[in-house]
Structures are given as structure tokens and as C-alpha cells.
């Protein structure tokens, strides 16, 4: 028995309209034996798995992106059409097609079946969600449908193991792949072809049944409230508040636990190992790097639990519907809201969450502005500077001035993000940007799909993003540690390292925006993550304090040695600057190219420099 799939195993493609339950069917057929990657050259997700049929046949199963038609409009649909037509380089043409249909929505789904049939590939039609159809009183004569279509038809329930048995039976007896590829016949359908297909669908439905029109469905009753002009936005606001609260607050405990766990392990390692360069590399390079990867996990898991549940239940497109006008005013999709909201906690889960935005240009615009949302890593820096420079007093009848400044920094981030989005989307015909978003019937989320989906996100983050972050952390450690200070050196060790030298050059560049050499040096290791700058400042000012005490010891020091314009300039810098390599690594992974992280770093540094320059000059002229 062949245990692992090989290139000679038959390749079976799952094809279907979006929202037909195809991915649930794929999950139950392949279980955890899935490989998630991207199709070459595009950011469309490629999911392949394998299945061992009862007779011992190992087949490969490819979950093609959902498509309404084989005449593609979106990158997702282009992949599906190209793979089926055998014209996508690097992909073999499938040997067999499973066309997945939503049995409750055959009127829409059968047109794709007719197009697929014309391709001439061997196929079977899966009447999925047949349990829901039956419960709704939709009776479909599957045998008759098979006769009318001229291909086998099986009923499936994509969320139950027993529900896929008839399909597996079909897959068990598929013919061996022929030596020669199938030759497919294809011509782009005209409007008349589509109309002709629909006439055929109507004829078929009239003989097999299964056409329940006009009834007020369960989803309609939910939508009467969920899309209500008043209750709809209120419900959405409550859900978004919950998501924000969860990512921001609930993640804090596990994040602190990971931080202190890594810290305790580092201390133990520090005590156990003799002082050496290797020990320094292990503790301050590798361990600190691993810690900085792990610390994002709680936020990513919590956010994706929410997103997967909202998506699986069918609520996510409704949220996009409600927010379409608001987000559309700056040229973004309504779906951009959840990624942007999560970015207030951390841009990394936020950027990963942009996968729910189908339009690639909308998705890219959302990725580009996500790091401008004030993430939680900015707070230690803001707290340090505000604590040292903004007096504790109340203004405008009871408002705390320090709080007002913090709020203004949040607003500045949001406003600049909206501005950047507007510029990015200008000239892309935003007036006629398509929505055409399907609002699928509501479903109870399925636990198996939730767990598999969550695991895939965690795996992508740990294996692909994590390795880049770890490598960058070790490189930064090396830059901050070498060369070692000469004997008899009086300054802090970092001053003599490469990072120190880079910092002194940067000091020249940063002089016009009011940064002294200490700030300039601290910004180099501070590239790793925003809050690292606080610790780095402590190192540069040669403080003996560690951990949380650094901030306390620094406050009076910087209050004394920096001018107010310098402090305000640094605040402005932190609103814009991409001082977070992990974010850039995530963008690299999500866009599958170095181009976009470089553009992001470029525009954000430019904004930061200009913003700080203006802030510094205005503050100087006023003081």
C-alpha cells in the first residue's frame, strides 16, 4: 500500500462557487494531511491534501479557489480556470474534478457545473449541504439530476465523516490517469451562452426539484436584525468591541507569561553557562529572538478564533456590507475593518487577517496602512516620553493632558492611514469599484474547520514568519555586539559596535529633526520592535537597571537632557516609523515579495522624517 502521495497519484480537484462548503468538504476528506502554500507568483492560497481510499488508492486532492465562472475576473478565479485548463505553469492538470454544489442554492451553482462539463474532464457533482437542503424541505432527485447532467451525482454533508462516504466511494473507483493529458475544449462564454445555461438550469430544476424560491428563510429573519439600519451597526459595534477587547486585553496574560517564561529561562541559562560570546548569542540573540516570535502567538490565536467563527458563520460579509460606505469613502473594502482594528493591538495579526479581503488591490492597500494603527508596542515609548515631558495637569475642564496627548497620537495614526489609503487608491477608478459580495446563509461554525484553520495560521506564522524574525533578531544582536569595546573604553559597549557607528552616522541625518546621538543609536536595535527602543536607550545611557525599571530610571534622565521639541519630534517619529522588523517580515510573507515591505519601509520612514521635522521646527519656533 502506497503510504505517501507521489506525483503518479491521481490528482483530484475540488471546484465550486464560493460559500458552497467546499473547504469543509476538503477538510473532512484530507483531515490534517494538508499542505498550505501559495500558487507560484501570486498570493492566492494553494491547499493540497491526500486521501487513502478504502481500496488502498492514494489520491491527491487540490482545493481550488472558489469561482463563479471559468471566465475569470479575480486572481482566485484565474488560478482555478488556468489549473483546470492545464495552462498554469508549475501545476499539473487535474485527472478528475469534484464539482461541489450547495444543494440549497442549485439555481446559482448549476451554471458552473454546466461550464465544467463542457471542459470534458471526468467529473462528479457533489450535492453538498444535502442535510440542510432536506431540513429546508428541498427535495432533489439526485438520480434524475445525474441523468440530466450526464455525470455522476452524490449527496454529501461536508461537516460529518459519514457525509462524505458516497463521494469517497466514487473516488475509490476513478479511472487510472491516462498517459496523455486530457485535451480540454474551451471558449469564452458570451452573454447568450450564460442565458442559455440559465434556461437549461431552469429546465433541469423543473424536473429534479430543489428550487425553493421566494420563501422567507432563517437567514432572512436574522438579517432583518443584523442588517437593520439601527440594530445592525449596534450589533456590529458590540462584536468589534469584543474582538478589540480580546486581542488587546485577554492576550495580555499569556503574553506576559511568555515574556517572563523566556526571561526566567534566560536567567537560568545565564547562571548555568560561563560568560562567553556564545552565551551572549544564546541569551541576547537566539532566546530574545524566539521570545519575540512567540510573544505574538496569543494575539494571533485569539484574533483568528474570532475571524474564523465570524467567517464560518456567515457574519463577516455582513460586517463588510454594513461598513462598505464608511470604508469605501477612502477606497477600502468593508472587510478591511477587522484587520485594521486588530492592528491597534499588533499589525502582525492584522496583516495576516487581510486574507479575508478578496480584491488584491484592496488587500494590499489595507496591508500598507495597517502599521499606522497605533499598536500596543508603541505604548511603552509613548508612556516614557509623555511621562517625562507632558505635565500632569488637567485641561478643558477635567481632561488629563497626558491622556489628551496619547489620544491625539492615536488620531494622528488613523488620520494618516486614511490619507495614505486615499492616495494609494486614487486613480484606480474608485467610483466603480466592485462590491458584488455574496451574503451566504448563516451556519453554525464547525469545530473541525475552526481547529484546522487556526492551526494553519499558527503554522504559517511560526514556520515562515518566525524564521525570518529570528534571523533578523540574531543579525541585530551581532550588529549591536561587534566589535567589542576596546579595553579601557569608558562609554557604553554598544557605542563601539557597528550599530553604534551606524547610530553616529544617523545622528548627522537626524540632527535636523532634533535627535541626539543617544536616540540615534537606540533606534538601530529599536528596529527589532518599537518597545525595544526603551531598553536600548537604557543601554546607551548606561543604566544598570533592567526590565521594567529602565523606564522609571530613564524618565528623569531624559526629562533633564532632552528639549521638549526633541521629545515631541520623537513622538511624531514613533507614529509613523516602521520600527518593527516583524511587521516587515509578515508583509514579505503575505505578499510573497520583498517589493512591498521595502515600499512600506520607504514610505513610512519618509513620513516619519517629514512628520518629525515639521513637529520639531514648529515646537522650536514656539518655545
Amino acid at each position, binding site marked *: 500500500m502506497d503510504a505517501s502521495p507521489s506525483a503518479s497519484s491521481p490528482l483530484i480537484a475540488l471546484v465550486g462557487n464560493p460559500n458552497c462548503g467546499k473547504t469543509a468538504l476538503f477538510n473532512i476528506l484530507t483531515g490534517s494531511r494538508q499542505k498550505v502554500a501559495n500558487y507560484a507568483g501570486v498570493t492566492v492560497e494553494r491547499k493540497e491534501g491526500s486521501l487513502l481510499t478504502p481500496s488502498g488508492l492514494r489520491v491527491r486532492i487540490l482545493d481550488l479557489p472558489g469561482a463563479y465562472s471559468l471566465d475569470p475576473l479575480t486572481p482566485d478565479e484565474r488560478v482555478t480556470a488556468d489549473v483546470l485548463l492545464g495552462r498554469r505553469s508549475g501545476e499539473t492538470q487535474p485527472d478528475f474534478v469534484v464539482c461541489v454544489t450547495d444543494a440549497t442554492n442549485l439555481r446559482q451553482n448549476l451554471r458552473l457545473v454546466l461550464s465544467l462539463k463542457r471542459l470534458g474532464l471526468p467529473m462528479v457533482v457533489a450535492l453538498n449541504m444535502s442535510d440542510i437542503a432536506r431540513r429546508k424541505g428541498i427535495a432533489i432527485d439526485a438520480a434524475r439530476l445525474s441523468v440530466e447532467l450526464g455525470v455522476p451525482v452524490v449527496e454529501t454533508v461536508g461537516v460529518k465523516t459519514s457525509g462524505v462516504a458516497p463521494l469517497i466511494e466514487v473516488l475509490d473507483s476513478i479511472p487510472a490517469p491516462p498517459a496523455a493529458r486530457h485535451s480540454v475544449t474551451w471558449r469564452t462564454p458570451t452573454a447568450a451562452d450564460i442565458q442559455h445555461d440559465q434556461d437549461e438550469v431552469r429546465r433541469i430544476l423543473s424536473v429534479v426539484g430543489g428550487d425553493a424560491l421566494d420563501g422567507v428563510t432563517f437567514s432572512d429573519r436574522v438579517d432583518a436584525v443584523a442588517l437593520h439600519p439601527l440594530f445592525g451597526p449596534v450589533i456590529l459595534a458590540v462584536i468589534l468591541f469584543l474582538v478589540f477587547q480580546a486581542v488587546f486585553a485577554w492576550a495580555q496574560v499569556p503574553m506576559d507569561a511568555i515574556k517572563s517564561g523566556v526571561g526566567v529561562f534566560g536567567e537560568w541559562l545565564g547562571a548555568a553557562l560561563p560568560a562567553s560570546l556564545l552565551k551572549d548569542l544564546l541569551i541576547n540573540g537566539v532566546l530574545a529572538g524566539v521570545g519575540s516570535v512567540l510573544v505574538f502567538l496569543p494575539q494571533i490565536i485569539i484574533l483568528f478564533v474570532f475571524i474564523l467563527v465570524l467567517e464560518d458563520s456567515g457574519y463577516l460579509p455582513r460586517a463588510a456590507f454594513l461598513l462598505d*460606505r464608511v470604508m469605501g469613502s477612502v477606497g477600502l473594502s468593508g472587510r478591511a475593518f477587522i484587520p485594521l482594528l486588530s492592528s491597534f493591538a499588533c499589525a502582525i495579526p492584522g496583516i495576516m487577517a487581510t486574507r479575508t479581503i478578496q480584491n488584491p488591490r484592496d488587500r494590499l492597500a489595507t496591508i500598507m496602512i495597517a502599521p499606522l494603527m497605533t499598536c500596543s508596542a508603541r505604548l511603552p515609548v509613548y508612556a516614557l516620553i509623555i511621562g517625562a515631558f507632558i505635565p500632569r495637569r488637567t485641561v478643558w475642564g477635567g481632561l488629563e493632558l497626558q491622556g489628551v496627548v496619547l489620544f491625539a497620537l492615536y488620531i494622528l495614526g488613523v488620520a494618516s492611514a486614511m490619507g495614505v489609503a486615499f492616495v494609494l487608491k486614487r486613480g484606480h477608478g474608485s467610483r466603480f469599484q466592485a462590491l458584488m459580495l455574496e451574503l451566504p446563509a448563516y451556519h453554525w461554525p464547525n469545530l473541525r474547520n475552526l481547529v484546522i484553520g487556526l492551526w494553519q495560521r499558527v503554522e504559517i506564522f511560526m514556520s515562515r514568519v518566525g524564521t525570518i524574525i529570528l534571523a533578523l533578531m540574531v543579525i541585530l544582536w551581532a550588529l549591536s555586539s561587534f566589535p567589542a569595546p576596546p579595553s579601557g573604553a569608558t562609554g557604553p559597549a554598544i557605542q563601539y559596535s557597528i550599530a553604534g557607528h551606524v547610530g553616529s552616522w544617523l545622528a548627522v541625518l537626524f540632527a535636523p529633526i532634533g535627535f541626539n546621538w543617544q536616540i540615534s543609536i537606540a533606534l538601530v536595535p529599536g528596529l527589532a520592535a518599537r518597545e525595544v527602543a526603551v531598553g536600548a536607550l537604557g543601554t546607551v545611557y548606561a543604566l544598570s537597571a533592567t526590565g521594567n525599571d529602565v523606564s522609571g530610571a530613564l524618565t528623569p534622565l531624559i526629562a533633564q537632557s532632552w528639549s521638549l521639541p526633541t521629545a515631541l519630534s520623537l513622538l511624531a517619529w514613533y507614529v509613523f516609523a516602521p520600527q518593527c522588523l516583524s511587521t516587515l517580515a509578515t508583509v514579505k510573507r503575505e505578499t510573497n515579495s520583498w517589493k512591498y515591505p521595502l515600499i512600506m519601509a520607504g514610505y513610512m520612514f519618509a513620513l516619519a522624517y517629514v512628520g518629525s521635522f515639521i513637529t520639531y521646527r514648529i515646537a522650536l519656533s514656539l518655545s
Partner: protein
Amino acid sequence: MQPGEIRLADLKPGTTARVVSVSAEDAAAPAEVGRRLAELGFLPGEAVRIVARGFMARAPIAVRIGTGTFALRLFEAACVRVCPERPQPL
């Protein structure tokens, strides 16, 4: 326009209508809008009903077409002309 024919966006929520024609109304709208609407099922003779409208400027519009539901922006809905099953109350 035939008698009784109206734009989809003018259909009263909850009233069932039949699609009469689908075409890119605004010459500046991309041609694929009409094609995509047809591929989603907006085809002459199909039953449509407005399920909900957005809370800002009554847009976008959630439309039941056949057995599916789609959210359309106003310029998309403008491409679809429908004929109500019963005359609409004014």
C-alpha cells in the same frame, strides 16, 4: 423602458420582481460589471427581492437573486432593470 419597468435600486424592500435586462448603464462603468452580474445570476426572468439596505445613504443593497443573496453597490444595481410582480405602492 417598458411600462412597469424600474431600476433595481428603486425597488421597494420586500417586493418581489423579475429581472428584465442587465447592461452597464453608465458608459464609464467597466464592461465586466454587466458580465459578472450575469454570472452571479442576474439574468432576465430571474426573481429578485431587496433584503436590506445599508444604514448610510441606503447603500449598499442586499439583493436576493434566485436562491442566493448578494450585496451590490448602487452603480452595480443601476445596471439591472426589473419589473415588480405587483404594482408598487407609491
